[in-house]
C-alpha cells in the first residue's frame, strides 16, 4: 500500500468513527483486498451488463468514498461487525444497485445460523450468497426496510447512525 492510500484510508476510518476498531490500517487494507478478490470471484460467470462496470479494488473503494461516502461506511461497518467476504461482496453489489430478491434465515440456538440471500442483478438475473457465520447476521442491522403497496421490501444497506444527542452519557 502506498503512503497516499494509507493516509486516505486512515481519513476514511476516522470519518466513520471506526478508529478504535481499525487501528491497523495495513490489516484493513488487506481485508479490503480480500473482499475485492471475493467480489471478482463472485462476478465470474455473471452475464455482461449484470453488474456495473465499477472498479472494485482498494483504489476503487478509496475513490468511491469521494463520491459516495455512505457506501464505503457501510462496507467498513460490516467489516467491523466481522462479516465475511461473501456478505461484503453481496453488500457492495447491492450498493451498486442490485436488489435483494429473497432472504432466508434458518436459525436454531446452538445449532445453526444459515443466511441465504438472492440478489437480483441489473439484467434481472440472480446471484446467490450463503453464510453459516453468525457474525454475518449483522447485515440485518444495516439493511433498509420499506413497504411498497403494503408489500415488504429490503432495499439497500446504509451505515448505522445515531444523532449526537443520543450518544451523550447520562448525567
Amino acid at each position: 500500500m502506498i503512503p497516499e492510500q494509507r493516509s486516505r484510508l486512515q481519513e476514511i476510518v476516522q470519518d466513520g468513527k471506526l478508529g478504535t476498531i481499525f487501528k491497523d490500517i495495513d490489516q484493513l487494507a488487506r481485508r479490503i483486498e480480500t473482499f475485492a478478490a471475493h467480489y471478482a470471484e463472485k462476478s465470474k460467470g455473471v452475464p455482461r451488463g449484470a453488474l456495473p462496470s465499477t472498479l472494485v479494488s482498494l483504489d476503487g473503494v478509496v475513490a468511491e468514498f469521494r463520491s459516495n461516502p455512505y457506501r464505503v461506511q457501510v462496507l467498513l461497518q460490516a467489516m467491523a461487525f466481522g462479516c465475511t467476504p461473501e456478505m461484503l461482496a453481496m453488500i457492495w453489489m447491492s450498493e451498486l444497485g442490485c436488489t435483494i430478491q429473497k432472504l432466508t434465515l434458518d436459525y436454531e440456538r446452538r445449532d445453526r445460523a444459515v443466511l441465504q440471500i438472492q440478489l437480483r442483478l441489473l439484467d434481472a438475473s440472480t446471484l446467490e450468497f450463503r453464510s453459516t457465520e453468525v457474525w454475518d447476521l449483522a447485515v440485518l442491522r444495516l439493511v433498509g426496510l420499506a413497504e411498497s403497496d403494503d408489500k415488504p421490501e429490503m432495499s439497500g444497506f446504509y451505515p448505522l447512525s445515531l444523532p449526537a444527542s443520543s450518544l451523550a452519557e447520562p448525567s
Partner: protein
Amino acid sequence: MIGGEDIIIQLPGVAPSVTMPAAVRYVLDRWPAAVMQDGDTARRFDSFATMDFGHLREVFVYRDEQAFDSWERLGADATNADQMIHLLASVGQFTIVIDNLQDMCAASIVRGLCDRLRFGMPWFAPSQDAEAA
C-alpha cells in the same frame, strides 16, 4: 402549469449523503425505468451506481425516459403531472415535492417513502409527523 406539495420529514442529525440514496432507491423500486437528474447541475443519471450521493442535494426522479423528455420539452405543463418527484436533502431534513397528493400512485410513494426514512433505516430518528406545506 402544475403546482407542487412539499412533504417535509425531520431526521435529526442524519446526513443528506445517506437520506438521498435511501429515497432515490425507494422511488426506483417503484419506478424501475426512472431517470434521475441532479437538480443543481441538470446532470442526468441513468443508473443508481453512477450517482454521486456525496454531492447530490437535490434530485429530480422522472418516471421513465418519456417523462424525462417531456419535462425537458414542456417543463411544468399539465401533461407532465405526476411524472416526476422532486427530492431535496439537507442535514436533519428531507423534503419530497410532488404535484398532487390526491393522486393515488403519488400518495402511495410518498407514504412509503416517509415510512422508509422514518422507520426503515438503521438510524434512530424520533418519529416526526410529515408536514404538508
